[in-house]
């Protein structure tokens, strides 16, 4: 069998089989990973961490951080407060109110402090140190560069806000869920957007993974069967048995058995039948 494997044909076939098995297995592993509950969903239920551990300064927001609960301590930038009008909440149109929060490292992060139906009554952010808890959101890309110099923005986009500040901003923004000291009661908390993809295992991808592994098994079994048949050709169906050449000895015994049976000598008849059967057996084994 080993020698047969070392022929060119079998080397090529074996390499092909190994390649197919590897590729199919990896495709299965890929689907297996896709079947797992996503990191996006995991981010939603993860315990809060400091905002700078998931959003690094001067780096784009990692997509798996979206929806993550974070904490931040610092002071709100009292000189810059922005509103984003045209935001719906509970069927009403109002504005989001946001302020950059200065972090101890000197950078800042935009915090959406809440929603208000009357931007004039939004009030201002607390001036002292605050502890903020909220969820990370990816920046809303406006597509247009900074609008005017007023407090009104068309979207929550750090890239648009940053040029108006003297310090760098983290990518994305944080939607406030809790604050100490408590947030202005005139602001209604904005429900953060949570990633919807990845709620648990994906059965379809799991099935695809299984399917790839079954295919890989097909290849292995096929390779083995081909090799086995090649080394030891299968028993080809026997042609119809050729008419057996008359066996004088056999015929004699059969005749004898018949005669003995007729003559009534049971013991002799049984013995001759036994001999005839032995002959038959030897005959069929010999083929």
């Amino acid at each position: 069998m080993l020698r047969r494997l070392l022929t060119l044909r079998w080397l090529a076939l074996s390499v092909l089989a190994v390649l197919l098995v590897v590729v199919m297995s990896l495709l299965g592993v890929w689907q297996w990973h896709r079947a797992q509950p996503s990191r996006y969903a995991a981010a939603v239920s993860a315990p809060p961490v400091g905002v700078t551990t998931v959003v690094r300064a001067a780096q784009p927001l990692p997509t798996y951080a979206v929806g993550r609960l974070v904490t931040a301590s610092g002071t709100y930038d009292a000189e810059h407060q922005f509103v984003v009008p045209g935001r719906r909440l509970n069927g009403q149109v109002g504005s989001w109110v946001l302020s950059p929060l200065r972090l101890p490292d000197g950078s800042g992060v935009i915090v959406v402090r809440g929603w208000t139906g009357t931007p004039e009554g939004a009030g201002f952010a607390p001036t002292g140190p605050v502890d903020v808890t909220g969820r990370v959101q990816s920046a809303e890309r406006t597509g247009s560069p900074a609008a005017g110099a007023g407090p009104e923005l068309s979207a929550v986009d750090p890239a648009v806000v940053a040029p108006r500040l003297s310090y760098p901003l983290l990518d994305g923004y944080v939607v406030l869920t809790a604050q100490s000291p408590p947030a202005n009661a005139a602001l209604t908390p904005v429900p953060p957007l949570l990633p919807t993809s990845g709620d648990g295992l994906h059965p379809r991808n799991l099935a695809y993974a299984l399917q790839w592994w079954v295919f890989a098994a097909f290849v292995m079994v096929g390779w083995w069967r081909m090799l086995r048949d090649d080394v030891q050709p299968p028993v080809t169906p026997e042609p119809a048995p050729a008419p057996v050449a008359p066996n004088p000895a056999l015929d004699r015994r059969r005749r004898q058995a018949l005669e003995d049976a007729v003559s009534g000598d049971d013991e002799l008849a049984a013995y001759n039948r036994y001999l005839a059967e032995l002959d038959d057996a030897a005959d069929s084994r010999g083929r």
Partner: protein
Amino acid sequence: MADAELRSDGRLRGAFGRYRVMAYVVGVMLLLLVAAMVVKYVGGHPFLVRVVAPIHGFLYIAYLVVALDLASKARWSLGRTVLVLLAGTVPFCSFVMERRVEQDFRSAPAAF
């Protein structure tokens, strides 16, 4: 008939039986899937497809397994094997193919 041949014939019979069952099951499931797709794309109700499609997918894999097993035991040519495998993907085709395979089996089980 020698022992080995008898045994392999029995195994062939078993493989053929499994193939017949799966060809029938996959054929019926495929018709169900077509009906479910009509319900989805004409009727606008996708729920039937969501139930039937994955079941059909699993059964088709099982069909592939038993058909390949039969192909290897009956020593079919590659072309015939592929034809029989593909027959499971065309509505009604698996019934036709199953009938043809059965006729061949009945007429010459030994040379099958």
